[in-house]
C-alpha cells in the first residue's frame, strides 16, 4: 500500500478547540477505514495532547497550537506542537498519576492514555520554547474475504 496524505492546521489554545482537534483527526483518519475502537483511541490521544498544550503549555493563556497529520500506508502520524512553557522533566511528566496541577483536578493520566492508545509516542520539549508530541498508530487492515 503506497497511500500517502498529509494535513496541517493551526488553532488558538482555547478549550473549545479540544473537540475540534479530535474530530478533525478522526475525520482525516477515516480514509484508513479504522474500527470504531481505533477511532476512539486516536480521539482520546489527540484530546490528551491538545489539552496538555492548553493547560500546561500555555497555562490558559493565549497561544497557537499546530496539529499535523500524515498517512503513510496504513499508519497515521499525529503531531501536536505548542510554543508554551515546555516541560522541565519529561520523565516525571509521563509517569502515570503524576500531575503538576492537582488543584485543577488533573488526573495525571494524559501521557499514559496517549501511550496506551497509540503504538508510539515521542515527546520533545524545551523549557520556555515549547513542546512537540508525536504519536503513531497503524490501522489494522481487515480483509472480509480472507
Amino acid at each position, binding site marked *: 500500500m503506497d497511500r500517502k496524505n498529509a494535513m496541517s492546521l493551526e488553532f488558538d489554545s482555547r*478549550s*473549545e478547540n*479540544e*473537540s475540534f482537534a*479530535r474530530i478533525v483527526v478522526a475525520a482525516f483518519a477515516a480514509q484508513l477505514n479504522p474500527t*470504531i*475502537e481505533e477511532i*476512539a483511541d486516536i*480521539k*482520546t490521544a489527540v*484530546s*490528551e495532547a491538545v*489539552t496538555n498544550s*492548553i*493547560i500546561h503549555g500555555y497555562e490558559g493563556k493565549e497561544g497557537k497550537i499546530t496539529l499535523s497529520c500524515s498517512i503513510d500506508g496504513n499508519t497515521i502520524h499525529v503531531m501536536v506542537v505548542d510554543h508554551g512553557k515546555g516541560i522541565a522533566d519529561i520523565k516525571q511528566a509521563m509517569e502515570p498519576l503524576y500531575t503538576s496541577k492537582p488543584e*485543577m*483536578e*488533573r*488526573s*495525571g*493520566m*494524559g501521557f*499514559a*492514555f496517549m501511550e*496506551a492508545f497509540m503504538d508510539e509516542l515521542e515527546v520533545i520539549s524545551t523549557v520556555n520554547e515549547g513542546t512537540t508530541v508525536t504519536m503513531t498508530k497503524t490501522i489494522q487492515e481487515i480483509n472480509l474475504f480472507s
Partner: protein
Amino acid sequence: METSKDKTISTKMGANMELRGRSLLIQITKELDHHNAVIIREKADQLIDRNSVKQIIFDFANSEFMDSSGIGVIMGRYKKIIFTGGKVAVTNVNASIDRIFKLSGLYKIIDKYATIEEALSK
C-alpha cells in the same frame, strides 16, 4: 443563580443535573473533555454543597467520549462526598469510555451499573 429549591439544572453545555432524593444524577450530554469538565465541576459542586448528597451518578447514555479530564471530574466529586459516607456510580457506559475507566483504575473506587434505576436502588 440557582437556589437549593431548584431540583434540576441544565447547564446546556455538558450535562443535565437533577436531585433525586439524596442522589445527584449528572447526565452527561456532551463529550466529557477538559472544556466540559470545568463547567460540570462548577455546577455539580453548587448542588453538592447545598444539598446533603449521598450518592452521585454520572450517566453516559448521551455521551460517547471521555478523556482523562473526565477521570479528574469523577475523582474530584468522589473526594468531596467520600468523607461523609457518600458513593459514586457510573451508568450506561459505552465500550470506549469503559476502557478509560478500566485503564485508570477508577472501578476500584466507583461502581458501574447498567441503568440509572439500578444505581438509584443501591
